[in-house]
């Protein structure tokens, strides 16, 4: 006598215990601490914070450990935790021109006020595995003249003075919040940028890359990339004035793109903007390329490439949404499959019936 499959609950519990064991690995090897992750896997932490939309290094480190290093899973953990947090209000906009700079480069100028500051970067390293280096304590780096806190005007403002580049759009209205209101199409730039910041690094990298290869080409120059610390301020309603509540590390990328002009506008450079928590430079650059590509409507350009297709890009950029839906194919679908089976059998029977009729 057949008895229907039972014991889903037991199986799940056992699977979770096994997952815990696998996560721990060989118990003879010391357990990795979240402090170590926070200090030594900083770029992983930065990415989880950026795409998780929550600036909290410690929580991100916990998430990375719990996710066994699977960053999308870690981002997912952060997003789920973020959901439960009450919203007290919105900070005042951060001012990136007041950034305490750790890195600042421009590919558009050889030198500019404030200078090029290389900072911590893989850019000019030789990609050779350093088998010993990981064990040897690094000698402290001699930092250059301690004038890095001098004002560093943003490069795009320098050419902006000449009118060669469009003004940074400052919509007077309050920016929307796509974590509070669902994204609707067509979406304005504020919401597009929010969506892109949360978007998957790999997806945006590929799209940004595609614009460079001619699919929605916009001739970009890395006008400026800056990474460093900015302070965050908040105006509590009961106080009525602004107070500084902390500081965060961010990366900002401003791309300069060609633009041939339109009906009412003479030719000038246009902007693409990218921002991330921490030092997610690749992400910030990709985002800037895609931001520019998505501005086809406002710049009256022809939409020809995937990266210019707002609904396509924004609907598929979120890796938490994407991974959920792809992986949901693992859930049972046997009721629908049964419906298809029944249909397919009927169709085949009918075809065979017709063949027989034809044969007779």
């Amino acid at each position, binding site marked *: 006598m*057949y008895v*229907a*499959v*039972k*014991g*889903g*609950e037991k*199986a*799940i519990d056992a699977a979770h215990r096994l997952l815990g064991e696998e996560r721990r690995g060989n118990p003879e090897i010391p357990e990795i601490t979240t402090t170590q992750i926070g200090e030594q896997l900083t770029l992983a932490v930065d990415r989880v914070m950026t795409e998780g939309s929550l600036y909290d290094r410690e929580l991100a480190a916990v998430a990375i450990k719990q996710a066994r290093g699977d960053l999308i899973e870690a981002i*997912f953990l952060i*997003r*789920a935790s*973020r*959901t*439960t947090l*009450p*919203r007290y209000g919105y900070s005042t906009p951060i001012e990136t021109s007041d950034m305490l700079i750790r890195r600042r480069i421009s590919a558009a100028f050889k030198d500019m006020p404030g200078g090029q500051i290389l900072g911590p970067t893989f850019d000019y390293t030789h990609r050779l595995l350093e088998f010993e280096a990981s064990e040897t304590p690094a000698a402290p780096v001699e930092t250059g003249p301690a004038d890095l806190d001098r004002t560093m005007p943003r490069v795009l403002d320098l050419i902006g003075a000449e009118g060669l580049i469009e003004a940074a759009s400052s919509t007077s209205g309050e920016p929307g919040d*796509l*974590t*509070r*209101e*669902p*994204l*609707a*199409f*067509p979406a304005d730039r504020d919401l597009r940028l929010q969506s892109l910041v949360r978007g998957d690094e790999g997806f945006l990298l590929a799209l940004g890359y595609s614009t460079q290869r001619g699919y929605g080409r916009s001739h970009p120059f890395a006008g400026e990339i800056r990474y460093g610390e900015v302070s965050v301020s908040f105006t509590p309603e009961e106080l009525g004035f602004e107070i500084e509540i902390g500081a965060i590390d961010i990366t900002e990328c401003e791309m300069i793109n060609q633009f041939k002009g339109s009906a009412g506008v003479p030719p000038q450079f246009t902007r693409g903007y990218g921002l991330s928590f921490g030092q997610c430079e690749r992400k910030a650059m990709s985002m800037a390329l895609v931001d520019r590509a998505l501005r086809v409507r406002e710049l009256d350009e022809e939409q020809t490439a995937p990266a210019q297709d707002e*609904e396509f890009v924004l*609907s598929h950029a979120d890796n*938490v*949404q994407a*991974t*959920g*839906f*792809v*992986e*949901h194919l693992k*859930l*049972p*679908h*046997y*009721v*629908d499959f*049964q*419906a*298809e*089976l*029944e*249909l397919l059998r009927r*169709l085949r029977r*009918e075809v065979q019936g017709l063949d027989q009729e034809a044969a007779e």
Partner: protein
Amino acid sequence: MTTGYNFAYLNEQTKRMIRRALLKAVAIPGYQVPFASREMPMPYGWGTGGVQVTASILTPQDTLKVIDQGADDTTNAVSIRKFFVRTAGVATTEETEKASIIQTRHRVPEAALREDQILVYQVPIPEPLRFLEPRETETRKMHALEEYGIMHVKLYEDIARHGHIATAYAYPAKVNGRYVFDPSPIPKFDNPKLDDCAALQLFGAGREKRIYAVPPYTKVRSLDFEDHPFSVQKWEEPCALCGSTTTYLDEIILDDKGKRMFVCSDTDHCRKSQEKAA
């Protein structure tokens, strides 16, 4: 019950936002109301829409039943039921009659529902026009202007190719004579149960950020042609466990020689029928 979280996980602000969307959905049957879907601790596509709807309407006095593929003990149903036990501490049941809220994926219970029950559906793709027209801007217009001709183009193609309509699940229907909607991937066998149902039916799509509803006693008409009317699946044999000939059956493969049997997909209903017979 896990402390540290609000009752049923979501904070009250969020619940209010979802309830507002639900009220709008009930007021405009079948219309997809956008809502600010939150990240939940289960993945998108695994019932986050249904879970958010359930969390927003749940009270401590409720008795919750969760099914997936018609069964209470499928892994995802177990996981969601556990989630609400942990975060809300509500009573749960496997018996359709005893539940005040039933969350479901892919099935409608066989037993007729009552006015004091709410059925919450998990929805992956709420837009019935999506696979005919991928653009949201365009489908929104089509709904607004009631331009549904293209749905019938698909049904026409089915008949031209197969002799009958070849949509077996997620079969589109018109609610209250106005909006065409996707009843979620339930087999079309279940579509007639949505029509004139005594219970409130709520649909939540988390990833796609849409909520819609079929209020009690509302007309739900599956799309068809006058000369090719809508019809549901039938099986040639009864359920091997309870002998039912009127329920949706799952096919169970018994060995590698193609031996198979058919049993009720609604495990609670099947058990009840067996008890009655005994």
